[in-house]
């Protein structure tokens, strides 16, 4: 083979090999991209799992702390106040001076009032959804309690066939409701609060609404308080979709949807 022929062949071969390399690069890129997407998704799933576990721990600690405080109030402070009432009543029995006796009765009344408040607080802090108690019953209790206080009228209604929720979902839904009620009464100066639970084959929808003065959602999102943060955390923990809308003219609306696969 002479030099010219060799040169042509070499050139032709080089051209074919280089084009083949370029085509191979294309396929390598596609495979690399596919693997990278899979890897990125795995990392994201791990991060999400970690985040969820962190949230669970946080809520668990918070719940434990609240229960401990509640028990302390009930067992320690409550007992001491009961004792104080007894002493005061005993003192009153011995006292013959009418004005002093009247004052002691006043003190006893005040202590009793504080005792009742503390009991309510203790109950609120230690309260947990018990197995077998449906969300409707728990919310009805809350509604009755608030209506008695006459801070504002709380209306409650349920639609659809109730679905039994897991203890965790029940607890979280109850806490979210309590947080909403607490915020509405404390900050919104509302006259009415509407609580609606809708059960259907897709899951449970909770619609809460008040007719108070509302707030700027963006502003609150940027500097979210503990209450709103807790609502968000709890919703994330049970895989629920949360939407909070608020308007100074129409009040605040909270929609929570718990998909059926996350209920049990």
């Amino acid at each position, binding site marked *: 083979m002479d030099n*010219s022929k060799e*040169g042509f062949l070499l050139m*032709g071969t080089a051209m074919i090999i*280089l*084009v083949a390399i370029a*085509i191979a690069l294309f396929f390598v890129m596609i495979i690399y991209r596919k693997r990278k997407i899979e890897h990125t998704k795995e990392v994201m799933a791990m991060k999400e799992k970690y985040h969820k576990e962190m949230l669970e721990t946080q809520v668990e600690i918070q719940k434990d702390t609240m229960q401990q405080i509640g028990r302390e109030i009930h067992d320690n402070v409550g007992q001491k106040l009961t004792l104080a009432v007894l002493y005061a009543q005993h003192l009153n029995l011995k006292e013959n001076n009418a004005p002093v006796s009247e004052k002691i009765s006043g003190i006893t009344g005040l202590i009793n009032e504080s005792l009742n408040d503390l009991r309510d607080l203790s109950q609120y802090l230690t309260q947990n959804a018990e197995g077998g108690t449906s969300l409707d019953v728990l919310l009805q209790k809350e509604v009755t309690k608030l209506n008695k206080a006459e801070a504002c009228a709380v209306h409650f209604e349920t639609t659809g066939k109730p679905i039994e929720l897991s203890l965790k979902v029940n607890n979280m839904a109850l806490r979210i409701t309590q947080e909403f009620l607490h915020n509405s009464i404390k900050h919104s100066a509302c006259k009415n609060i509407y609580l609606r639970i809708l059960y259907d084959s897709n899951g449970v929808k909770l619609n809460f609404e008040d007719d108070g003065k509302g707030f700027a959602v963006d502003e609150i999102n940027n500097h979210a308080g503990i209450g709103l943060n807790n609502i968000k955390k709890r919703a994330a923990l049970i895989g629920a979709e949360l939407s909070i809308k608020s308007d100074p003219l129409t009040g605040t609306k909270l929609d929570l949807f718990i998909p059926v696969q996350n209920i049990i």
Partner: protein
Amino acid sequence: MYTEIIWFEITAFIFSLIALPKILGSRYMRIYPILLFIIVAVEGYYKFINTRYYNNATVYNIQIPLQYICYLLILYFAAAGKGLKLFLMFAVCGVVLFTLTTTIYFTPKGYSNVLSYSFCSIVIIIGIVWKFYEMLKNPLEFNFLRNPFFYMLFAFLIFNLGTLPYFTMANWLYNNRSYRHFYDLLVSVMSVLNYLLYTTYSIAFIWIILRKGSY
């Protein structure tokens, strides 16, 4: 076969002009019409105006580096990373200096400046591969397979890799007319790569034209 390449170049240029309103906002895509104009102007001149055969190596010695500078600028404006931008900046300077030096000192009159061509080609291959690496960094946010620019770069990469041996040996080929069938075969491969390149450009511009919104 290579005589028909001009039609593919003209088609790509026309589509780039039609796509102009959409690509005008893109700092790198708007260079393509200029680049295609340079190519069409030179090739068109020899195809339609100056049809007498004569050695046009001197014109190509200017046109080809200019063409590569346009490609480097396209890559420079498309680059996201600082490293690639710096590389391309030095590459543009390098191409200018290398072409001037090799044309003045190492290229005999009437011969193609194959050194400059090879240098430009290697530099652009590195640039394109680097850009591909950039495109692969965030596959969830950016799907390069749905980006016309990726296919334009890829076609140019194939063109460069495929024609590198041919153009590097351009002077040897010009002076060696033995084994006509081998020579014709190489010209055919080079022509096919040209068809592929400009057809890809045309399709990419049609894609951009038909797509909603600007590029």
